[in-house]
């Protein structure tokens, strides 16, 4: 299971909150440099799946393998695993008491033990790459939602992760701010980052994904290349979901 080009593997992953079974046996394999988009209605388990991969939620059954290492086993150092897997949240979750630069530096300095000077230089370089160089000394609440979300992406990238997870990162944004965030993710895809993206932006998913997975009721009902999923879905539930999306004018 090592070095075979599989970045992330989920095998029969189950997760319940009380009596509610949110994930009911998820099997998913993500190759290195692959971009997988998770689509599905709210409550279908997309966010929970991503949070399980980042070990923010413990799984109740099955296991998750990252680059050959079972991260769901007992005794695994969760902090070490999380440093290799970046996650960006719907609500940004920037640290409001720190400047943009310090938000980005915190992970490398305190998590990876990177020397301060080096972390600063890397953070400044990353911020510049995503057009945020002039915002580095601002506090997050002085930025637009789109800028905040770009900072959140940069903060995750500063850890030099192997895999990036995106949890509906444009859902809290005004429509005119969505594009700048999606463009950042596009650039990451082009640079070969392995990514799992939960999204409601179907046009974007169709554009960027190597593979689209339709989640419904805690299982992956259908998956395949975006062209096939969006043009000729096989599962009736997928058809129904996409029909509603089209009716809502979102595709």
């Amino acid at each position, binding site marked *: 299971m090592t070095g075979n080009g599989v970045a992330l593997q989920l095998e029969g992953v189950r997760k319940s909150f009380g009596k509610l079974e949110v994930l009911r046996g998820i099997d998913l394999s993500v190759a290195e440099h692959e971009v997988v988009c998770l689509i599905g209605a709210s409550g279908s388990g997309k966010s929970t799946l991503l949070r399980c991969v980042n070990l923010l939620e413990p799984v109740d059954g099955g296991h998750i393998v990252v680059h050959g290492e079972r991260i769901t086993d007992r005794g695994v150092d969760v902090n070490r695993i999380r440093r290799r897997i970046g996650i960006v*949240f719907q609500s940004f979750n920037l*640290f409001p008491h720190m400047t943009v630069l310090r938000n980005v530096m*915190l992970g490398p300095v305190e*998590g990876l033990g990177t020397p301060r000077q080096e972390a600063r230089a890397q953070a400044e370089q990353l911020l510049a790459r995503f057009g945020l160089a002039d915002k580095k000394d601002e506090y997050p*609440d002085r930025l637009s939602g789109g800028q905040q979300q770009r900072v959140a992406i940069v903060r995750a990238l500063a*850890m030099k992760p192997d895999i990036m997870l995106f949890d509906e990162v444009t859902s809290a944004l005004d429509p005119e701010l969505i594009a700048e965030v999606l463009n950042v993710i596009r650039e990451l895809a082009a640079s070969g980052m392995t990514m799992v993206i939960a999204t409601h932006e179907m046009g974007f998913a169709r554009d960027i994904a190597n593979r689209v997975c339709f989640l419904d009721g805690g299982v992956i009902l259908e998956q395949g290349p975006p062209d096939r999923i969006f043009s000729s879905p096989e599962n009736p539930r997928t058809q129904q979901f996409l029909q509603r999306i089209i009716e809502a004018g979102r595709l």
Partner: protein
Amino acid sequence: MSSGNPFDVEPLIESAGPPPPPGSRRSRLFGDTLRQEGAKGVAIALVSTVVVVFLLVWVVVHSSNWPVVKQAFFNGQEFKDTFPEIARKFVRNIQYFMIAEVFILALALLLAVMRSLPGAVFFPIRLLAIVYTDLFRGLPLILVIYLLGFGMPSLALKGLPTSAAFWGIVGLILAYSAYVAEVYRAGIESVHPSQVAAARALGLSRWKSLRFVVIPQAVRRVVPPLLNDFIGLQKDTALLSIVIPFAEAFKQAQIDQSADFNFTPVLCAAVLFLAITIPMTRVVDWLLVRQRARRQAGAVA
């Protein structure tokens, strides 16, 4: 404008100038409230204040009992004679306050963190913190100071100081830490769990998440209530008078009072305490107004 603020003179506001910045409208600070109402409002407030104060003073001074009260409480000569010594002793009150404050801030934060530790393993530590805060919040402060200030020196324990001042201050620290710990804890619990998730997602340990993300935000939020407790502490340094002879403003005032059969020295001490506590109260109000303005500005953005 329905805040019940006595300085809100409703009909006059229409003529006020530009709209006030958000957050200051309901301010209870003198300056802010008056500024909004324009020059006309200021003039009317001033005149009505002068009239009311004049009437009050006139009524008091012309009452038949005034000369007796004046002699006992507001004796000018007595004030002049005793004030310098009491003020000199009051410096000690400030010193005790500052020494205690440093330790309280540290001990209380430790207690709050102990109580916030998650998981079954830390149950005994949580329990310890809970028992501590329940105990010291439940005891009268004067009792704690009495017990430690008189009790501990009499034991003459090896390796521990036997000064009543030391143990009196320890009593202040122990009791106030319980209150301040609860203030900190409220702050810690007010930080949204998503902040912890973001920190943990960066691979930060539980402890580092607490240290770099949770505590800095928690402390910022509880600065006004913390200052409130400081005001209480500053006043309660007078309780040390029961264990520390001759070395504190209230004690000195008592001595002068019983020597001259006059209460003016106690009034001297009162004036000194107010000179510190009232400005501190204003600062707390100002901080609260600023915090509210920030929150509102944040909500708009």
